[in-house]
C-alpha cells in the first residue's frame, strides 16, 4: 500500500527495507504451477465478467429448459451427460438446462461473494487488529474477546438460521457476503494485532509519537504499510475458503436461490444424480475445485514472494 507519496522518508525506507524488492514478486509467478493457477484465475474472472456473452456464444443461457436434450427418463440423452456441439458441458438432468452456461454464470456468484466477503473481512480485521495492537489495554481485551467469540461461534448454524430469517426478496449475494465476511475477520485481526504490537514499539514509531503524531497518522503511515504484505497474503489464502463457504451454503440450500446459477447448488443437485449422470457433478465440481485450488496456489506463491521469513528453500 502507499508507502511513498506522503510518508516521511524514514518511514518509507523502513518499510521498504523489510520487504523484498518488487521484481521478486513478479518472478515468483513465472514458475509453471503459479502460472497455470494465474491463468485459471484469469479465465474464471473473465468468465464471470462476460458470462452472458460466453453463454450466448455457445448459443444458450442458463435458464431455458431443453426437454429435447433429455431422454424419456429425464436423464440427458447422449454420452457424458449429453455433451454436444449445442451443449458443450452437456445438460442438467431433469431440466435440460445448458450446463456450460450454468457453470459460467456460477463463476459470477462464487467470485463476487468470495472477493467481496474477503474484502469485508480484511477491512474489519485490519482495522480491529491495528486498533487492538496499537492502543492496547481495554480496547485490546475487547477486540480479543470479540475475536474469541466470533471464532467460537458456530458459523454454519448461524448462517443457515440467518438465511431463513432474511427476506427472500432481498439480494441474496449481499447476505452471503455479509455473513461470510463477518465471520472471516478474526484470523486476520489476530495476525495484524500481533504485528502491530511489535511495530508500535519500534523506535521510529515511538519517535514519531513523541513528536506529536496522532493515532491516524501512525495507523496510515507506519503500521499499515508494514502489515500490508501480511494482509495481502492472508486475504489471498483465505479467499478460496470463502468461495467454498458460499458453495457450502448453496449446497445446503440456504445460499443463492434458484434460478441464479451457483456451483454449490449444482453440486448439491448433482449428488442425487451421481450414479445416473456423473458428468453433471463433474463440471461444476471441477470448476469449484480449479478456482479454489488456483487461488490457494496464488496465495502461497504470494506469501513465499512477500514473506522474508518463510522463503522457499
Amino acid at each position, binding site marked *: 500500500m502507499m508507502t511513498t507519496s506522503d510518508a516521511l522518508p524514514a518511514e518509507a525506507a523502513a518499510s521498504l527495507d523489510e520487504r523484498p524488492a518488487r521484481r521478486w514478486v513478479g518472478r515468483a509467478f513465472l514458475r509453471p504451477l503459479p502460472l497455470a493457477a494465474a491463468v485459471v484465475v484469469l479465465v474464471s474472472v473473465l468468465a464471470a465478467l462476460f458470462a452472458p456473452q460466453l453463454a450466448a456464444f455457445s448459443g444458450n443461457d442458463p*435458464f*431455458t*429448459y431443453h*426437454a429435447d436434450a*433429455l431422454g*424419456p*427418463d*429425464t*436423464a440427458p440423452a447422449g454420452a457424458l451427460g449429453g455433451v454436444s456441439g449445442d451443449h458443450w458441458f452437456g445438460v442438467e*438432468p*431433469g*431440466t*435440460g438446462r445448458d450446463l456450460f452456461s450454468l457453470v459460467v454464470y456460477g463463476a459470477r456468484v462464487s467470485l463476487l461473494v468470495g472477493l467481496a466477503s474477503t474484502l469485508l473481512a480484511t477491512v474489519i480485521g485490519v482495522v480491529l487488529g491495528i486498533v487492538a495492537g496499537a492502543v492496547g489495554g481495554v480496547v485490546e481485551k475487547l477486540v480479543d474477546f470479540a475475536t474469541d467469540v466470533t471464532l467460537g461461534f458456530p458459523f454454519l448454524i448461524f448462517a443457515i438460521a440467518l438465511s431463513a430469517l432474511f427476506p*427472500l*426478496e432481498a439480494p441474496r449475494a449481499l447476505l452471503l457476503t455479509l455473513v461470510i465476511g463477518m465471520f472471516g475477520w478474526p484470523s486476520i485481526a489476530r495476525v495484524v494485532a500481533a504485528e502491530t504490537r511489535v511495530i508500535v514499539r519500534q523506535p521510529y514509531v515511538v519517535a514519531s509519537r513523541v513528536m506529536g503524531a496522532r493515532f491516524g497518522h501512525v495507523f496510515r503511515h507506519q503500521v499499515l504499510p508494514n502489515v500490508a504484505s501480511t494482509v495481502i497474503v492472508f486475504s489471498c489464502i483465505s479467499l478460496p475458503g470463502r468461495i467454498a463457504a458460499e458453495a457450502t451454503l448453496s449446497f445446503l*440450500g440456504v445460499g443463492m*436461490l*434458484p*434460478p441464479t446459477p451457483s456451483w454449490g447448488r449444482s453440486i448439491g*443437485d448433482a449428488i*442425487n*444424480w451421481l*450414479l*445416473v449422470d456423473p458428468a453433471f457433478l463433474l463440471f461444476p465440481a471441477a470448476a469449484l475445485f480449479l478456482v479454489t485450488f488456483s487461488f490457494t496456489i496464488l496465495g502461497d506463491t504470494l506469501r513465499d514472494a512477500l514473506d522474508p521469513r518463510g522463503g522457499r528453500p
Partner: protein
Amino acid sequence: MTSPRLPRRGLLAAGPVVLGLGALAACTDGGSSSSSDAGGAQGGTLTIFSTSEDMSFDPATSQSLAITSLGLTARRLTAWKTSADAPTELIPDLATDTGTPSDDGRTWTFTLQDGLTFEDGTAITAATVKYGLERSFAKELTGGLTYHKVLLEGGEDYEGPFSGKHLDSIEAKDETTLVFHLNRPYGAFGWIASTPAFAPVPEDSGEPESYATKPVASGPYRVASYKAGSQVVLERNEKWDSSTDQARTGGPDSIEFALAQDSSVVAQSLIADRSDAQDAFLASFVPAAQLVQAQNDPKVGDRLVTSGPGALEYLAMNTQSEALKDVKVRTAIQYAVDKEAYRTAKGGEISGDYATTLITPGIEGREEYSLYGDAPAGDAEKAKSLLAEAGVKDLSLRLVITEDDTAAAEAIQQGLARAGITVTIQPLDENAYTSEVPAGDGSGYDLVLGSWQPDVPSPDANLTPLFDSSQIGGGNYNLARYSNPEVDKALLDASSTVDADEAAAKWAAVDKQILQDSPLVPLIYSKNSFLHGSGVKDFVIGEFPAYPNYLTVTLG
C-alpha cells in the same frame, strides 16, 4: 416434494407427516395364523421408511387412507380391497356389511361383528365407534378428514364429546347397531365409513392429545414404542382375530417405521437391495434421480412399482392474494405454466400424464376437456397478452413449497418467467409449510404446489376438499382459498344426487365451472412410483388409490 405428501394426506395420512406413516400395513397379525384369504407368509420385521418426522395414530386427526399406516392399528366400519387389475372394492371391516341405506339415503345403518375387542380385551361396541366419531369434531383434534362432519345432522354446531355433549345423529342403538342420520341423501356413505374417524376409540382413552402416540389398537398391530423423529415400532395385537378381518393379512410380526429419513438415501439402499433394506419399503415416492436409476438398473426390476394415474398435482393460486385477485391474471398463469418442464422435473413420462381437468382419471363423473390450450409447454405469448389486457406489469409472486419440491418449483418459475412473471421460491420444512399454507391465514403465499389424492373414489373427494369455501384454512386443503357461493351450492347439489348418471353429469359441469375461475393450474395426474426390498411380497398398488396397500404386505 410436497405433492406426494399432500395427496397422501388426502387419503393416506393425516398430514404430510402421516403420509409416511400411513404406509404401514399389513400383515396378519396375531399369533394366530393368517386369515382365510391371507396368502402371504407370516413373521419377520417389516421396515417402512418415512420422510416424516412424526406420525399420528389418532383417527380423529389422521387423513390416512384406509390401506395405509393407520389401518394397521385402527379398523373402521368399512375397508378397501385393492388389486392391481381390478377396481377397488368397498368391503366390510368392523361391520358385517358396507352399510344399509334407508330414507332415500339419508339414514345409514351398520351392524358390528360380534366378539371384537381392543388390544386391552375390552369390547368394541357401537358406543366406542360413536365416541371415536365424536372426538373428530373436537377443536383440540384438528387435521382429520371432514367428509362425515358436513354430512351428519347437527355436525356443524357440534364441538366434540369432551364437554359432555353428544351428537344425536349418531345413534348407538345397542351394543352392535349404529344408525347415522344425514342432513341430505348421500349414496357413497359406505365409502365415507372407511375414513379414519370411523375407527372405535374407548371412552377412557386418556388425554386426547396423547392418543396420537398411545392409541388403543383395534387392528392387527399395536404401538409398542413411539419416538418422534426417529422410530415407531408396532407389534402384534394378540387380541386381533384374523377371521374377523377381510382387509388385513397381518404378515410381519412387527413393523418399524423409520422416521425422518432422506428419501434419496433410502431409495439408493433399496435399489442396491442392501441387507438392511431388504425387508423394507419407502413410503414416499421415489425421487426423480433415483427413479431414473431404478429404471435403468436390472437389479431393481419389479421391485419398482408404479401406480396408474392417481393424484392431481396442481399449482394453486391464492385467489385472496392481491396480485391474483383478477381472474385474467390467473388465466394468464394457466397459459404461462410449463407442464412439460414440471413433469420432466418430476421424472418424466413414468411420473404422470398431463392434466387438464380437476376430477382425476378413473373416477366416475370425469369428463375430459381442456380449457386453456393443449400444449403441455404452455403458451407464453398468450399469457403475456392476457397480462397486458389485465393491465398488470412486473408481476412478482411467492411460491411456497416444501423443501424437496425445489426442482418442480424451478420448472414453474421458469415457465412463468417466459411470460415476464417473477417467482420467488420459498422452501419450508414440513411443519412450517403446514402452519403457513393449509393452516395459515393465506397471507404468506401467492402460489403453492400441491397434490390431491381423493380419499374415496368419488368426485366429491376430488372437488369438495379443494374448492368448497368451508375448506379454507384451519388445516384444510382449499389452498387456492377459493370461495364461490355458486360452486359451493353446485358441489352440495352434485354430492346429494343419488342417481349415478345424473350425479356424473353434475360433477362434470361443476369441474368445468370451477376451472373457468382458474383457482389452480392442473399439472399432471401423477403416477406414483414406490421401491421395496427383495424380501417384501404382496406389495400391491390397486387402481385406486395410487398407493400400496400396507395392510396386505408380507415378507417372503
